[in-house]
């Protein structure tokens, strides 16, 4: 079972990113669950979402304690939440940031999701949309296929810029 924990702030689309990832994995022919952990639903508060992917039906509902991958959509969350807690020794990290990022002991990938969203004018209620570009980054890392990412995004969104954003992140991320 492959376990992903996504850190974001309310309104940035972390919950939707989890659902998109699960849907893409499902379109890859695998079993997947997406479970957000909801606090009080308010914009700006730290939000954690979980995705599990497996080749067998998934019966676990509890929160992920030892993720294989941590995705950080907003680096400011790192000041208030221990985002690397429980990360497996060989676990990887994806950070929405410009320039190279390093997390001691873990393969770390940075991709400027905010820049991609802004360049496509993918902004809702003042927030750049991060949940569709991040799927492109996750496809580049081999977690799901890019075909399934496109399919998943098209199933949930009609605006074609979302798929374009995912492709841009796919190209930008250096595995």
């Amino acid at each position, binding site marked *: 079972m492959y376990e992903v924990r996504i850190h974001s702030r309310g309104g940035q689309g972390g919950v939707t990113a989890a659902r998109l990832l699960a849907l893409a994995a*499902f379109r890859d022919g695998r*079993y997947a669950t997406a479970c957000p952990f909801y606090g009080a639903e308010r914009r700006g508060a730290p939000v954690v979402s979980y995705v599990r992917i497996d080749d067998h039906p998934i019966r*676990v509902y509890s*929160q992920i304690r030892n993720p294989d991958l941590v995705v950080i959509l907003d680096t400011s969350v790192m000041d208030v939440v221990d985002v690397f807690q429980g990360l497996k020794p060989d676990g990887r990290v994806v950070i929405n940031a410009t320039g190279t990022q390093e997390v001691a002991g873990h393969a770390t990938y940075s991709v400027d999701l905010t820049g991609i969203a802004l360049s496509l004018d993918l902004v809702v209620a003042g927030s750049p949309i991060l949940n569709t570009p991040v799927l492109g980054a996750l496809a580049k890392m081999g977690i799901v296929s890019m075909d399934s990412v496109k399919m998943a995004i098209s199933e949930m969104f009609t605006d074609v810029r979302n798929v374009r954003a995912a492709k841009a992140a796919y190209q930008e991320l250096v595995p």
Partner: protein
Amino acid sequence: MLTIATGNKAVAAAVKEVRPAVVAAYPITPQTEIVEQIAEYVTSGELDCRYIPVESEHSAMAACIGASVTGARTFTATSSHGLMYMHEMVNWAAGARLPIVMANVNRALGPGWNVWAEHTDSLQERDTGWLQVYVSTVQEAYDATIMAFRIAEHHDVLLPVMVNLDGFVLSHSMQRLETLHPGDFIPPMELPHAIDTAHPAGYGTLTGPDDYFRFRWDIERSMRRSAGIIAGTEQEFADRFGRSYGPVHEYRFEDADVVVIAMGTLAKEAEVAIDKLRDEGIRAGSLGIRWFRPFPDLDLGGRDLVVIDRDYSFGFGGILAQSLKSKHRIDPYTVIAGLGGQEVTFDDIASFVRERRPGEEHWFGVSDDV
């Protein structure tokens, strides 16, 4: 069609297939998605139904009662405080023998203000005459909602059915979902006592003690008959659509020396604990209680039992454990866990089994000697 969906969306999708004539609802977290999705189906024309947005849950159930008594198929959804607010009408719906189907997304009651999963809300409605089923997966939420209409509307039942799913843990979790077209599995609703202007009759008038007593006995008689109707419905569902359900869901139960009993998503999480315990050489199994009303007859003899209650009756005990004890001569280890969404993992459940103390009640994470 094969897709993935949240528990909420699955319930709404099931309602769409069963085509109620009236949905009356008031949104309350965490079920809001259900009634939002149904409103979208109505707006898009996918569901031809009268959607009545009301000003409270009490009015939602009152509107369902008014619609149902005309013979219209009727649905609503609620949660927690919404269910508490409609309590008076919940009783009325059963007493009036109306086959209303309601989804309740289980959530704790305040204060303290808390939106997370707990079963005390619906278990406080256990004496109202509603049938109650508790589901543990998105697929089961879908299938149970479809079957609920057929069971409620069966003329040997004619009682409302409440489909219960855990708040957030299931209502907001995305899982695999296979949708279906029920076809004549759900025949048109026929309410024998529907109001009819050609045959005027009085409804809800003062009822003397003798008649009232007989009406109550008739509810209980139907409740007892409902177990057979549920079994028949689930069997036909399995034959036609390929997924089997029963009053309980057994997992590695047959040869188990120790059995974990739970409801909702904790019953599913328990299965992972059972596999772990089996690997350690402990012959464990689990029972997920699905139908709480009518309460199932079980053969539990000769095994150690660990009952997990995500609910509580203050001054008495865990409601599931006490219900099992009153029906069967058993002395389980009762664990009160998961109240207000408390995190309970399969590892925790495995330790409940390893450290069980038959006859005792343990409040998980709070105290070892309550």
